[in-house]
């Protein structure tokens, strides 16, 4: 199977401080589902930033879609970013845009014509249960609703990789399951999913998902051999 992401001896340091991430070695494959776990401050968000090209590593090699993302010219980054959907931990919705416009943003950035984006955006709003909040601005939405808009924005462009940072942190358990089902549906269509979470119960919801655990900026299994999450209690022997 071709790899979609490969980290080789990757380290990340902010300013002159200690390394936030160190010696990361792992490979992600297309169409796989990964959970990234670890305690707060373990470096989950920093690792995701490297994945969605918001940050360049201080050392090491990151191969993304078969190309070196570390030395890639800046001008080429937008094209790669369009292939990655991101759900930010703090949503990062544009405050003066409606829910519709926020969700449509990746399509508009990619140059999709207006008449071609109305139906998919409306469908996505329906799917995340916000069909009646099309014109609502983020400030008038609850935390859970904002998170759903953020997720809809991340998946609307059918990305090859979806990176989600605590995507279920602000939604009720039912909505959390629905969102995971959306991720799973995308995954079955071929999207590689990487979900950072500290909610251990989520891990059992996606059969076949693999887990990476970060401890103090390093993978708990430094060899990069990813392991499956523990089975739910009712399936344990």
């Amino acid at each position: 199977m071709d790899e979609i992401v490969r980290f080789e001896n990757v380290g990340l340091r902010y300013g002159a401080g200690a390394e936030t991430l160190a010696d990361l070695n792992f490979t992600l494959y297309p169409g796989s589902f990964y959970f990234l776990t670890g305690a707060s401050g373990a470096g989950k968000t920093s690792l995701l930033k490297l994945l969605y090209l918001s940050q360049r590593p201080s050392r090491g090699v990151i191969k993304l879609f078969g190309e070196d993302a570390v030395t890639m010219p800046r001008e080429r980054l937008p094209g790669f970013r369009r292939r990655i959907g991101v759900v930010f931990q703090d949503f990062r919705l544009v405050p003066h845009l409606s829910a519709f416009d926020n969700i449509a943003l990746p399509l508009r950035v990619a140059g999709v014509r207006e008449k071609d984006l109305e139906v998919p955006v409306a469908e996505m709003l329906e799917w995340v249960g916000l069909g009646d909040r099309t014109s609502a601005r983020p400030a008038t939405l609850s935390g859970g609703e904002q998170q759903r808009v953020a997720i809809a924005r991340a998946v609307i462009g059918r990305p090859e990789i979806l990176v989600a940072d605590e995507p279920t942190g602000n939604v009720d358990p039912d909505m959390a399951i629905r969102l995971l089902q959306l991720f799973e549906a995308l995954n079955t269509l071929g999207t590689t999913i990487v979900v950072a979470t500290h909610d251990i119960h989520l891990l059992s919801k996606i059969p076949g998902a693999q887990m990476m655990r970060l401890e103090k900026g390093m993978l708990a299994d430094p060899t990069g051999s990813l392991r499956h999450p523990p089975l739910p209690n009712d399936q344990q022997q």
Partner: protein
Amino acid sequence: MFKFFVIPGHDRRLIPEGRLSGPMPWVIAIMIFLTVLAAAAGLAMTRAMGDVSDELSSRATVQIIEANPEIRRGQAAAVADRLRALPLIEEVRLLPPEEIEALIEPWLGTQDLADEIPLPALIDVKLVRVATDAEYQSLRGDLQSIAPGARVEPSSGYIAPVISLVRSFQWIAFGLVALLALATASAVIISARSALNTHTETIAVVHLLGGTDEQISRLFQRRIALDALLGGLIGLVGASAIIWLISGQLSALGSGLVQSVGLDWWSWLIIAVIPILGMFLAMITAKWTVIGALKKIV
């Protein structure tokens, strides 16, 4: 180049555009107002200098200094005839005594002094071209053979210090235009940086969703270009009103160099283009500023 003007409405909403709501259009309005006044002054002086210089550089005055009025009249007529016969001379006008008296009236009053003071006869001469010093020297020799008291004074000699002064003012005016252009560009840089800071979060999101530097800079270019155009038009209208008022007052003075200080149609055309040039300056400065700032982000 003008692609940024046809950005769809939904993209424009990314960076809200409040017309005249911020200080930028008003700062630009003041800058363009001052620029138009400085440019108008420079252009008016250029025109005045050109008119006066063209008019006077090919003119000369011949004075016949002779105490005896009879002899003076005879010499003046002979000199005028001689001048008309020369190929270098285009036009000869012997000033009547009344006109000469009118010329000295501001200094000597209206009393009938002409009989008491021997005024020279004056002949206004227009040459076919600007004569050289050697030609003037030859002309003097020629005329003095007819009237020993004849003096030939090129008019350019009188006006040279004035022309030099006007030229200095002209350079000062155009220097002011250049300084104001620099100040306008600086104001745009400050405004663009401020707008970037205000919308940092939106820009970061658009970047991470795959937006290019060009896409983002176009949003700022459009906003700043429209602010500059709007401010420029306000400045142009204000300055034009003042120029029009001053032009009227100068015309009313009705004399010489001062009357020449005015604007012809091409000067007005240059002035009308200033807000558009200001808009281009703002647009280019905004683009450089925004692209430069975006390059610091990954």
